């Protein structure tokens, strides 16, 4: 059961501002979305413990250095940059 408190917490975690008068509607919608997943509970399963979908284990890389990209390339998609750093503006 999704509560108003859950929605408020999720809003905080998602850095979203939610107005008081939106809460009831959002809670109802969130409940509906979560209910979709409940359908999975009704699907039959073999009852065996399930680890990961490909049933893979121990896929490793050897500890050998490969050259990194240049700072210029790394910063290419940065919304803002300065002094070869990603720049995060303080909006507070």
């Amino acid at each position, binding site marked *: 059961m999704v509560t108003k408190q859950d929605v408020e917490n999720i809003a905080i975690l998602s850095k979203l501002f939610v107005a008081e008068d939106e809460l009831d509607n959002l809670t109802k919608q969130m409940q509906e979305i979560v209910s979709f997943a409940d359908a999975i509970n009704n699907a039959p399963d073999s009852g065996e413990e399930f*680890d990961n979908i490909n049933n893979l*284990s121990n896929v490793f*890389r050897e*500890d050998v250095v490969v050259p*990194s990209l*240049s700072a210029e390339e*790394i910063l290419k998609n940065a919304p803002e940059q300065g002094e070869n750093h990603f720049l*995060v503006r303080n909006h507070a």
Partner: protein
Amino acid sequence: MKYELVSGFETHVELSTNTKIFCSCTTAFGGEPNTHCCPVCIGLPGTLPKLNRQVVRYAIMAGLATNCEIAEVAKMDRKNYCYPDLPKAYQISEYDKPLCEHGYIQLSNGRKIRILRIHIEEDAGKLIHAHGDTYVDYNRGGVPLIEIVTEPDFRSVDEAREYVERLQQIMRYIGVSDCRMEEGSMRCDVNISVRPEGSEELGTRTEIKNMNSINNIVKAMEYEFERQVDVIESGGKVIQETLRYDDASGTTSSMRGKEDANDYRYFRDPDLVTILTSREEVEEIRSILPELPAVKQSRYTDDYGIPEKDAQLLTKYRKVSEYFDEAIKGLDNPKTAANFIIGSIFRRVETEKDKETFDVPVSPAQLNELVKLIEDKKIQNNLAKKTLEKMLDTGKSCTEFIDESDLGGVDDGALEEMCRKAIESNPNAVSDYRGGKEKALMSLLGNVMKQSRGKADAVAVKTKLIELIAE
């Protein structure tokens, strides 16, 4: 009322692998900003992490060296939080199936500090706050860490200090980390609560984050202990919160909550597969572990009769203990070699950093050769000491400084003759000694040693002098 400290540690240790935990970028410290990065470690969409095998091996080594059980099945999880030091908005860590669990480190007072778990995870990037903005360097992002979590088993600040020193020593011995606190490759979060002495209940705890020197840990713990006692004594309640320690003022202060709901929404990382560790692999790793410092130390004290304090000095750094082990091969009494190392050699290798590498001009074999001469009673201790200094100056072996005339002791006849000569030429010293000035004997002794060019045995000379004076 008297209060007791209750404390637990979470220690992050950066592993000394060549590459990051999920990509092949270098882990080298420093470097120009954002030059040790690739699409994986800056979290670009569509990239996939691939686990570094060496990270798993190092973590298992750390687990075995701290008496942990190694999990047959482990997995990686996502720890979600939104902060610029994490480009993916989650850190890949291990939640409910860590690689190592249920270990301990024993302290010198006999108490065991239980280790709850050791898990592997990725380090975050470095943030520089300037001009009201935040500059992010992801060079450190993705560097492999192990987090070592203890139970709340510390009852004093001294125990905490010893634990950190031992942990540092063990990790360096097994070579999984350099544990340089000043470079951030070892960082401690400390949980602290207080309770009336004798109580079994745990008080409300606070957590001091990210301390990077043993001195600061000690000072912060002392301050926080007093602060909590003051709060309780004045009728207040300790609030559970995360604190930072300010070195300049020597106080702790509340940190802004990273996540109000403190809800990391851990879930399995679907990009990473299960880690299975066979018992054979665990035993194979156990077999390559070096002798651990605690075992070495008791070998030195119990088997060689070396005083505990000296044994501690010899085992503090792996290179020093290896040097010592090499130097005492085939010797009857390792104590002499121990004294030479702690005395003459340590005087020239003063800093902690130098002891860590222990690059000494005299090789262990050369020291062995010198001590062998003493054991075979070919030269006296004093002469050996002087010779060692010359060896340290030049890097040459002892045979370069000891000629045939130095070898062999002084026979009894010659010794008596020298003593008589000393007594005859120093009537004042003799009468001073007879008058009760014990120290006067030293000048006679010095005279004989000079005559014998340091070859005479000081104890034998003293006995002979006393005997002759009494005649």
